[in-house]
């Protein structure tokens, strides 16, 4: 921790970066911290409780400004940063990435290649919670699954915390806000909630890095992250993706191949 704090303080003092996005102790658990001077680096923490996906902030222009900045990134944040890079939302010149590895060593990544190599060591696995709920859902019939998800969706009140917490939901105008035509009714109702979440899931296909931020953010406890996680898991073998690694060939929904094995798409 001291190494991280010292390094961040040095980076800010030297003017190498103008901002470091990290974590501090919050009122319930660690929360995002924005260090703009070396004094505030003393508040920095970095441990296994640091869950928020900080990549959600790196595309916010009003926050990060025009100068170079740094992020202290746990594995989930690293994966999202890679995906944002692949989607041309980040540049190496603008962003310095720090992490603390499993041996407690401070690591600094200047290029996205380095992040990619580092992330490759970590296998994407379901945690206990994901395994428990997903195995239950996988055991359901199609009708049971529909009933389960409609039940869950009926709790959604469209606060869009899922969208706001997601680093990859960076559109300035979301599909749900488009009103010509009005694709999705903007008020909450079970079916329009389902429409919203299906739309979001489709926009995440092949892009989601299964960080779980959307599910964690949901104030009404819908395990919304499991939809995109499951899609990612199903998609990986079909499209040759490596779960948790950005798809360099583009995302599944907007990529076409002349030699696609499915007839309908040619």
């Amino acid at each position, binding site marked *: 921790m001291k190494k991280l704090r010292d390094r961040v303080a040095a980076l800010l003092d030297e003017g190498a970066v103008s901002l470091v996005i990290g974590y501090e102790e919050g*009122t319930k658990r660690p*929360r995002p911290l924005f260090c703009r001077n070396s004094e505030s680096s003393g508040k920095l923490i970095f441990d296994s409780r640091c869950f928020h996906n900080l990549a959600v902030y790196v595309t916010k222009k009003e926050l990060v400004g025009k100068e170079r900045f740094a992020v202290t990134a746990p594995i989930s944040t690293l994966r999202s940063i890679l995906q944002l890079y692949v989607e041309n939302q980040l540049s190496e010149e603008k962003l310095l990435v720090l992490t603390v590895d499993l041996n407690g060593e401070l690591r600094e990544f200047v290029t996205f290649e380095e992040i990619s190599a580092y992330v490759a060591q970590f296998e994407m696995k379901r945690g206990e919670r994901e395994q428990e709920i997903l195995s239950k859902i996988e055991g359901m019939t199609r009708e049971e699954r529909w009933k389960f998800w409609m039940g869950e969706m009926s709790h959604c009140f469209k*606060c869009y915390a899922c*969208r*706001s*917490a997601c680093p990859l939901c960076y559109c300035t105008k979301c599909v749900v806000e488009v009103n010509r035509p009005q694709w999705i009714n*903007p*008020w909450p109702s079970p079916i329009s909630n389902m429409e919203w979440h299906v739309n979001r899931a489709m926009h995440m296909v092949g892009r989601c890095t299964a960080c779980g931020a959307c599910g964690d953010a949901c104030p*009404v406890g819908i395990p919304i992250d499991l939809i995109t996680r499951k899609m990612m898991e199903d998609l990986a073998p079909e499209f040759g993706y490596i779960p948790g690694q950005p798809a360099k060939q583009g995302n599944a929904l907007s990529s076409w191949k002349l030699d696609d094995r499915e007839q309908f798409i040619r």
Partner: protein
Amino acid sequence: METKYISQGGMAQWFESIIASGKRVYAPVNSRGQVDFKLVKNLSEVADDYIQTTQSIKASVYPKAEVLFTYEKDHGKVNLSDFDPETIPETVLWKVHPCDAAGFKPLSAIFNWDSADKLHNAHLVKTSVISFSCAKADQSCFCTSVNGSPGNTAGSDIQLTVLPDGGAIAEILTPKGEALVALLPPVFEAERGDKKEQYLVDLPARFSLEEVNAKLNKAFNSTVWKEQSERCIGCGACAFVCPTCACFDIQEDVHGSKGRRIRCWDACGFALFTLHTSGHNPREHQSQRWRQRILHKFSYMPDRLSVVGCTGCGRCSRACPVDMNILEHITSIAKQ
């Protein structure tokens, strides 16, 4: 106002008689790991061990989506059908916390300050509130800092304070409360001299509203808004769980020649809330939207509507994905 004693068994009988009267009863229910108000038929469904429901009860008097009127188009002509208040059933809210009941006043102030809101008022008329005083609180609770208390009776028709024997002190506060008592008068026994205060959680005030108001009057251009809101991700969770947030949108639901005009929840924290068609957005940045949220509740509402737009329920702090803790933020403004 009259104070009575009701035994645990009496309470169960009374609950049954409320159900038997045909009124809808909403009460906190624990399901999917969350406690929230749901339609109930039996007392056994009602949650016991929890601090706060995830959502407030505001949806009972200000639905998430409500039809303002319907219409039908017919060869260039339009026929309107007005909202009918008679369609709203008699409703009893059971086991409401005082901070939720206190939310009715600011909500009604917003809906009725200048012109009466027929829909909101129709819900209010049909709704009776049975609150339970609070014996427990957590670190997000701060009702005592915003004119409330764990035993605040504002907004309640009856307040129950549960006693160690499972019975309760029953404060019958309004004619609506009396009407509920009249469903089964014998279970309301003479009071036994129990001291209500003894059974309430001790929750010291954390800031003074006057002090906060005075600070906010000069804080519009303060750097505090940017500092506090940097981590805010701009969702509407805080507004939607809040018992007093009332910002809404008006939308159109069209099915062929028939349509419904719908009022639905909205939030001043959303980036597009104030966006003009021209592209101009007066509140372009999250810091401006955070400022609006705080100033509206703690400065504009007290000044314009003579009521603070916060009941200290702490739901926004509990719901926030990034720990925007309103108590922490207001306390720090008060200390500035």
